[in-house]
């Protein structure tokens, strides 16, 4: 997994990052998109306690919930970065949500198919696009106290 570092956070290179939801999106090239929490989405949530995900077969819309997270610093819905139909939930994460505290980059949450490619246009990809945005977000969250200064 090729990665790059921004302000002390490790980001996976061959993924898209949604600035609105702090989710990463990984395309498998065969019409499947896996979704997970990006490093700031994870850290600003704090230690994860409980996770629920919508069932496979559920159609979700970008900007709408695809699950719910309960963590030390965040309790609320997980917002879909793109529209599509859930075809799989990561059962190992559902059974042990605490793995997200250790490694949110390897542990995807849901896989979508039939997603709308137009939703990908607003996402950032590649170090040159991701790094400036991510660095600014780190600063913003530090100012807000959402992550340690």
């Amino acid at each position, binding site marked *: 997994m090729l990665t790059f570092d921004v302000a002390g956070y490790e980001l996976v290179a061959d993924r898209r990052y949604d600035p609105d939801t702090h989710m990463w999106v990984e395309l498998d090239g065969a019409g499947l998109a896996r979704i997970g929490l990006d490093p700031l989405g994870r850290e*600003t*949530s*704090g*230690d994860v*306690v*409980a996770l629920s995900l919508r069932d496979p077969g559920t159609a979700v819309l970008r900007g709408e919930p695809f699950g719910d997270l*309960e*963590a*030390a*610093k*965040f*309790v*609320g*819905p997980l917002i879909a970065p793109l529209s599509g139909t859930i075809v799989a939930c990561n059962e190992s994460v559902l059974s042990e949500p*605490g793995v997200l*505290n250790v490694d949110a980059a390897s542990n995807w949450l849901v896989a979508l198919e039939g997603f709308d490619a137009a939703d990908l246009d607003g996402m950032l990809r590649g170090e040159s696009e991701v790094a400036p945005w991510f660095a600014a977000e780190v600063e913003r969250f530090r*100012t*807000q*106290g*959402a*992550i*340690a*200064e």
Partner: protein
Amino acid sequence: MSTPALVEPGEAMRVRRETFGDAIEFYAPGLKRWQSSEWVPEKANRFLPVSVTGTACALQCDHCKTKVLEGMITISKDTDLFATAERLKAQGTEGILVSGGSTRRGGVPLLPHVDAMRRVREELGMRVIVHSGAVSPKLAAGLAEAEVDGVMLDIMGAEETIREVYHLDLTPADFERSLQLLAEREMRIIPHIVLGLHYGRFLGEWHALEMIGRYPVSTLILVVLTPLIGTPMGELEPPPLDDVTDFFALARVTMPDTKVNLGCGRPGGAMKVALDRAAIDHGLNGIAYPADGMVAYAKQQGLEPEFFEYCCSLTWANA
């Protein structure tokens, strides 16, 4: 204090209704990003915590290990408390909790900041409450002079817990002395009791309640030990639910005229749901960050929910 007799939930609810009627208060301070299917707060940053020590703490308590400080806004040499509050005010924040790590003597080093607290209240019109830890006469005087809106402190009733969990060379009498000092200054006192603090079991909680009952406190906040990942207590089980809910009822009838709230510190998931239901059933006045379904549940019990986007210690501000 020996283990007191059990109080039936019905009796606790009767006491609650007699004094406080049917209102139940739900709180959502800005200590974390939070929403439920029943309530989406309008302004998440209305009330924010500021640490005067950053993530530093001399105690390194077994239940926290500074984890609680990690989510707070930090002041620095370049941005003192007033400047920090000014910046937050510009972003829409209306009140702050001034907190921080502890010194080896069990107090948060607030004294250098009391003048800034006064200015934050007077010049910015913001509410200021503090986490004090153990209170010295000098700190009580400083906080009184600053006219802070309230003082929150954990009250521990067992010397073993103070020594083993908090690593402090203090006794329960020192915490009672803190209550006394604040009462003498007519401060708004908001004591907290951490239920199950002694590694998941009850030990000094009854004595703590007994001590608190001797002073004119504004609101009693009950929180429940939450084993935090990365701390020595990370692998512990929370205290047994029945022990906690029995204590809810006992606190209710022991302090029939004082508001008793379930604070934001408590385990999540299924236990949170059970705790919140019990808090409603056992006559507590309010709940911070209620679990999904609790607003509807309270209504089913004939209670009338009210919603406040600030800390559950600020009960006097509700009127």
